[in-house]
């Protein structure tokens, strides 16, 4: 099953809005919390000198220097992009790694995983992490156990990271449907792929930060009158005559 479906009925994925993400890390721990309770994402040496654990979503922070203008800080969440040509799937020897034909979600079947790590090597985006305690590969599931979950109220059938994002910088939807929120956002705001040259054809899209620090051609305020000449009394007169 590591043969990729030629095309999938739906193309579910995320849009991450880099103009809105404040880097609060909420999606990171929400993801950890949701996925920890079920299959479990272990942590090693949690209270020790060198803690380290499995996370399926990490938020980086970069500084960017435009050609002209002041430097910027841009926060950058990174999780599985559910690629159409997912190299992580084809390299898998056991078939544990697969892409669902229903919706394009890329998953790991932990029962079949031998923990060889090859899929993580194949992923250019660092979206896969081997769980040290369980010896199997972990990755973003697009919360497949939420989005169809009959035990959740309709409104909660979305990924945990999307549900928790305080600024609404994460959007979930079907890219196969041109009318979906994610398709429209991508179209309107110029959503883009990460490292397109690597031919992975990511499903997830990133919205670029809007242009910042506009040059101030804005017409400046014209003085009411020449105060030096008229003095305060003159100003007051002119001012109050406005009522």
């Amino acid at each position, binding site marked *: 099953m590591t043969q990729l479906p030629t095309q999938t009925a739906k193309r579910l994925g995320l849009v991450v809005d880099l103009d809105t993400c404040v880097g609060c890390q909420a999606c990171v721990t929400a993801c950890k919390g949701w996925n920890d309770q079920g299959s479990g994402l272990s942590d090693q040496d949690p209270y020790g000198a060198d803690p380290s654990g499995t996370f399926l979503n990490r938020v980086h922070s970069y500084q*960017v220097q435009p050609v002209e203008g002041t430097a910027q800080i841009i926060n950058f969440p990174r999780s599985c992009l559910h690629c159409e040509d997912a190299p992580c799937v084809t390299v898998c020897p056991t078939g544990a790694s697969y892409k669902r034909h229903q919706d394009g979600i890329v998953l790991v079947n932990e029962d079949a995983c031998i923990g060889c790590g090859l899929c993580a090597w194949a992923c250019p985006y660092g979206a896969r992490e081997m769980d040290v305690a369980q010896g199997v590969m972990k990755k973003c599931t697009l919360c497949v156990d939420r989005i169809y979950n009959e035990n959740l109220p309709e409104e909660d059938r979305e990924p945990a990271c999307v549900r928790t994002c305080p600024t609404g910088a994460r959007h979930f939807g079907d890219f196969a449907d041109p009318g979906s929120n994610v398709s429209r956002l991508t179209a309107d705001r110029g959503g883009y792929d990460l490292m397109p*040259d690597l031919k992975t054809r990511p499903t997830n899209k990133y919205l670029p930060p809007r242009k910042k620090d506009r040059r101030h051609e804005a017409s400046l305020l014209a003085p009411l009158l020449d105060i030096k000449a008229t003095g305060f009394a003159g100003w007051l007169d002119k001012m109050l005559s406005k009522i």
Partner: protein
Amino acid sequence: MHPAPSVIIFSVLSGMGFGLLALMGAGLAHATGWPAFLWWGLGYGLAIAGLLAAAFHLGNPRNGLKAFSQWRTSWLSREAWAAVATLLLLAPVALSDLLDLGLPRQFGWPGAVLALFTVFTTAMIYAQIRAVPRWHHPTTPLVFVGFAVTGGAVLAGQDWAGWCMAFMVPVLLLYWRIGDGQFDRAAQTLGTATGLDRVGQVGVFEQAHTASNYLLREMIFVVGRKHAQRLRIIALLLAALLPILILTVAPHRPIVFGIAAMVHMCGAFVQRWLFFAEAEHVVGLYYGQR
């Protein structure tokens, strides 16, 4: 990439093992009785030891057998098949040599081809990975197969083993030369990795986590790269030049081949360590590292 001992041992031993088996299968090295037992034993021993070492690299070996299932797309799965097939196909040949049953040599040829194919599949596991530009190149299988044949030849005490080593010198130099340019040729930067090259010059402000993680340990191994140049020279010396010298000055006796083989193997280990340690995964870009 993290040079995991298990993987290094695996690829070097199984490489030499399958190389030797290939020669034996092809009948280039032929013996009967005890010497045959030694050679075949060595071939099988190295190949199997290598495969076992590989198993150590697995987080969850229990599912090992499943690794045969995905031969359609996965080079690792193909390797599993090729390895097992080789070992099975050559078994009768080996048996005939041991007991001197005189099975026609042709019976060994498919196994021989398969043995080298096994090494090729191993190489392709790495070569296929776009995310590691240095590996993603035809010279990778060339190096692996080259080492297999050379290792096999010297183990099999072939007079032409020296020529193989001589051949490996330009191959390695070429591999390194090309390899060094691969990452830049892939043209991936923190800018393309984040897409923020549209905004300006991108640098890391803060790491995502201050704590370490699997990616950093497994794919962002930067330790010891500064010794690369020195290690390359050592690899050349041990894997080729020194053994060549030994084989040209010393009389071609088994013991001499034995020593040459040991020296060559050390060279192979150094080369293989570099193969991983020097390989840069594009995910390093996100961490401002290569």
